[in-house]
């Protein structure tokens, strides 16, 4: 009696999991399918699965002007730079915040939370003006500065939660042993925060890889475009005549690095976000 009940429960759950996977992956799998079909096969609908398979969409996209990998390279450069900047600024700040109590912590912590929630799209116009005045437009290095700034609130909050979780005696013992602040960070604290630093870095990378409005307004030279504005430019060119196979190939290519990162660091991301939620 209870055996069949349990079996039925397990069956129901499997069905739900299948639905969940279909919902999450279906659209992406459809992109993958589309990207491998010839234009004719797509327009003729579901006419036969036997023929019409092709890699032409990929070769088209990769041999465009500029080739698609150029956008991905730009996005990677900006992502790496902004991750580096963010961590370099956020780690000392988070450390100081975690070691302080009282009003300062409350004020800075509250400000950071508000900034982390803030829809940054509101800021693009003023940031564009800064870029124009300082001549920072069309410069990938400069673009990573606002990215670092926008990522800082969440990064500091996540890292300071991780600092606060380390037993304070570890650092105190290092202090008594004559370690300087830099040595304590280098040898004791940061090695113990590996997962938190990795997940924070990954979130920053994701953000800058995906960021749209600022990249859209700061970058105009097509060989400097990052992935998001490049996609929008493709989309904006024309709605109905655009070859969707090439579209799909682009979306697959643009998603692959993130898929790889997500699979590599799945544990850290989940742990990092979970921790952030609990502390936040």
């Amino acid at each position, binding site marked *: 009696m209870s055996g069949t009940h349990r079996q039925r429960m397990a069956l129901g759950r499997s069905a739900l999991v299948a639905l969940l*996977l279909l919902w999450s*992956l279906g*659209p992406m799998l459809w992109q993958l399918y589309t990207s491998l079909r010839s234009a004719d096969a797509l327009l003729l609908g579901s006419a036969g699965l036997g023929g019409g398979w092709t890699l032409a969409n990929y070769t088209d996209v990769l041999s465009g002007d500029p080739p698609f990998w150029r956008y991905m390279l730009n996005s990677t450069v900006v992502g790496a730079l902004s991750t580096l900047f963010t961590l370099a600024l956020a780690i000392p700040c988070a450390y100081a915040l975690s070691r302080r109590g009282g009003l300062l912590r409350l004020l800075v912590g509250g400000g950071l939370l508000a900034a982390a929630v803030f829809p940054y799209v509101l800021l693009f116009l*003023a940031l564009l003006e*800064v870029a124009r005045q300082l001549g920072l437009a069309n410069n990938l290095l400069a673009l990573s500065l606002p990215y670092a700034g926008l990522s800082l609130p969440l990064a500091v909050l996540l890292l300071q939660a991780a600092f606060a979780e380390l037993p304070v005696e570890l650092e105190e013992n290092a202090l008594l042993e004559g370690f300087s602040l830099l040595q304590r960070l280098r040898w004791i604290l940061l090695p113990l925060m590996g997962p938190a630093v990795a997940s924070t870095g990954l979130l920053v990378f994701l953000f800058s890889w995906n960021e749209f409005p600022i990249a859209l307004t700061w970058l105009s030279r097509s060989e400097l475009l990052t992935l998001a504005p490049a996609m929008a430019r493709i989309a904006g060119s024309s*709605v109905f005549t655009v070859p*969707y196979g090439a579209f799909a190939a682009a979306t697959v290519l643009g998603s692959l690095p993130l898929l790889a990162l*997500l699979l590599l660091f*799945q544990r850290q991301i989940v742990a990092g976000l979970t921790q952030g*939620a609990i502390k936040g």
Partner: protein
Amino acid sequence: MSALLLMAPALLLLLAVFVWPLLDYAWLSLQAQSVFTGLQPEPVGLANWQRLLADGRFWQDAGQTLRFAVVSVGLELVLGLGFALLLHQRWRGRGVVRTLTLLPWALPTTVMALGWRWIFNDPNGPINALLQSLGLASVPFLASPQLAWQTTVLADVWKTTPFVALLLLAGLQMIPADLYEAFALEGGSPWQSLWRVTLPLLRPYIFIVLLFRLAQALGVFDLVVVLTGGGPASSTESLAVYAYLNAMRFLDFGYSATVMLGMFVLLLISSAGLLLLQRRVQVRA
């Protein structure tokens, strides 16, 4: 003192990126700076603000944005809770599925928006192809105002539900299992335990999710720009898109800044409303 020194670089960049723009907008909203002024700022007092109050398109977009935010965040919350409950149970392969469900959240909005455009394409997209093969008429998903709006909501829900689910999952993991066991021993059904145990204890997490997601949804931009371009007939235009158009297409920077600030005020009001609601719920509980 040294603590402030360590924080200074980060705080300076934060001020430059978050505070400076708002001050800049406050100043800019009191200027006319457009093609009519040769793109030079000219003080005009409150003219921009008067225009904002009388601007039908601003208020229409405000309504659309708010409706979009409330509906999509509401759907994300319900769906996300379902995901979280499912992913919280123990079963084989749970870890992999957790990662795979995160994928939509990790992908660039612009990339997937492009994907949705193909999926909802009329008449060649897979959905319409399916409808046609069933002998039904194809549906102009992105060409009808109502359907375009619903498609936008669907794309947003698809993209951000994993994030909501992840945060709620974190909350579920904080609820000790013996609470459920005690409740079951007292004869509570699983459905009752959801309402009497899970949801009350999850409330702080739900609140954080709501706060974060509402603010983000009110600023919806990427999705609209790529999926519908704000159309048809600006029926899916959000406030952020309107502000963007004012600056980049109409080159009216003074008014664009005013729209941004107007949006900021609406954001503050909604956040305050949410805080009050949370307080009320807390007092009642």
